[in-house]
């Protein structure tokens, strides 16, 4: 296993796809944005959940907050500032909630994170309603090519971040926490601090991604920006790709995007059903994911 080589491979793949706008035209640029979005989100999710075993079912909360920040600061702040603010807001939220939330383990953590995301969704909704809004529309967003490169940069940043964590003490400690939290702590791993750090690190890029997608959608509505399907999709991609592997999120996102491109053309109704079937099959028979299965890297 050579994480540095994996990083090079992933970055080379991302770099190669930077040529899409010059070859593929608008449609493929759109596909590219979606694919990079999923790479960035799933890579960030894996940083926390793949490494530490704390499966977050509420990662959409960071995405939604990021989207909200960008839309709320539209035409007030420059886009670059509001995107940075989106990432910051997500990180601050992760930091503030991380302490109590990360005390909860196992399946309780899974449903708690879901609950927190839904709670935030409804609080944002109530806040928007109180302010007399229900949805926000932003006009004059950047060109699609700009968003493409922005999302590409976010995917690359997420990958580098995930790589950096994996090869650091933090990554080593998180893996130990995943395997046995108490034993890890007894061997000197600062468990609470590491979990919180991973939580914050895995939140900031989804925040920026949410902001960028708000620019892409030109529309913000809490029900959509905080759609739990986004959280579920991150998990499904990580599971299918392999969650403790730098290439996993790329492979998972690629599978999803490829599948949806192929299926909605010929069998739109079946797309979701097949997605569900794939998830079932992978959980039951290939729990280590495609990467774990195809490039088995550890001796057994």
């Amino acid at each position, binding site marked *: 296993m050579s994480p540095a080589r994996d990083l090079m491979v992933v970055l080379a793949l991302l770099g190669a796809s930077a040529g899409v706008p010059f070859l593929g035209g608008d449609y493929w640029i759109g596909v590219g944005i979606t694919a990079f979005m999923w790479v960035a989100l799933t890579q960030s999710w894996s940083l926390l959940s793949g490494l530490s075993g704390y499966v977050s079912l509420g990662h959409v909360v960071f995405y939604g907050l990021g989207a909200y920040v960008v839309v709320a600061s539209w035409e007030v702040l420059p886009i670059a500032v509001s995107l940075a603010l989106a990432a910051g807001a997500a990180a601050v939220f992760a930091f503030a909630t991380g302490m109590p939330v990360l005390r909860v383990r196992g399946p309780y953590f899974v449903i708690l994170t879901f609950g927190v995301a839904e709670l935030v969704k409804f609080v944002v909704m109530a806040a928007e309603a109180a302010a007399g809004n229900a949805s926000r529309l932003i006009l004059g967003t950047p060109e699609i090519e700009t968003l493409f490169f922005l999302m590409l940069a976010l995917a690359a940043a997420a990958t580098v971040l995930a790589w950096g964590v994996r090869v650091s*003490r933090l990554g080593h400690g998180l893996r130990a926490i995943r*395997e046995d939290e108490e034993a890890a702590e*007894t*061997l000197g791993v600062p468990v609470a601090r590491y979990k919180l750090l991973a939580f914050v690190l895995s939140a900031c890029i989804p925040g920026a991604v949410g902001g960028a997608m708000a620019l892409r959608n030109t529309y913000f509505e809490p029900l959509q920006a905080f759609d739990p399907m986004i959280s579920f999709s991150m998990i499904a991609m990580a599971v299918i790709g392999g969650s403790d592997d730098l290439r996993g999120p790329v492979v998972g996102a690629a599978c999803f995007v490829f599948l949806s491109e192929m299926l909605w053309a010929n069998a739109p109704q079946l797309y979701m059903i097949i997605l569900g079937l794939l998830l079932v099959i992978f959980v039951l028979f290939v729990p280590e994911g495609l990467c774990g299965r195809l490039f088995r890297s550890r001796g*057994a």
Partner: protein
Amino acid sequence: MSLLEVRQLSMRFGGVQALERVSFTVAEGKIIGLMGANGAGKTTLFSLIAGNERPSSGEILFENQSLAGLRPDQVCRRGVARTFQVVRPFAGLTVIENVTTAALFGMRRYRDRAQARDAAAAVLQELELGDRAEALAGSLTLSGQKRLEVARALATGARLVLLDEVMAGLTPMEVEAMLLTLRTLHRTRGLTLVVIEHVMRALMQLSDEILVLHSGRLIAQGEPPAVASDPEVLRLYFGEAA
């Protein structure tokens, strides 16, 4: 000079008094055997020293400094390591990764991952796990996993190691091997050990001093022959058979 000092340590779980005003000291470089029936409070004592549990009252001093309020990872970095009675390997990580974790995060705290790995490999050699380094920890035999527990504790660089039944469930031959290993480690590394063991003969052979716990109270302490002939210990611990 005493490395560890336990003063008036008490622990209650709900209505159960797990430990009651236990006091003792462990001198540096000694091997202390901890005896007692199931439920006597031996493992609880380890958990309190290692910071896994908070005592109801009493004090624990390590190198004359209180461990009160420290988390397990902080205690570990002070230089106290423990093993678990029911083994807790990081099953999905390889053997060497298990031990490297301890080298990275324990008292020794290697900054460099390659160095940590080298140190881990050295410890594995000492515990005769060198050839299993790349295997998944979950795939080891029980004997192997017990050795891994010891290896991890050692790799932290701890000065005091609490060994919780590292010989339980092993065959007589494996017990002999483990005893040899522990003695060697004690000698070469100058470790201080506190050992919980049910294999009585092994404990008597190994220890400089024996502590006997019964229902949370320390009922006897002294050199092995003295404790072995203590009438109360005989009555309580060995029952009528003795």
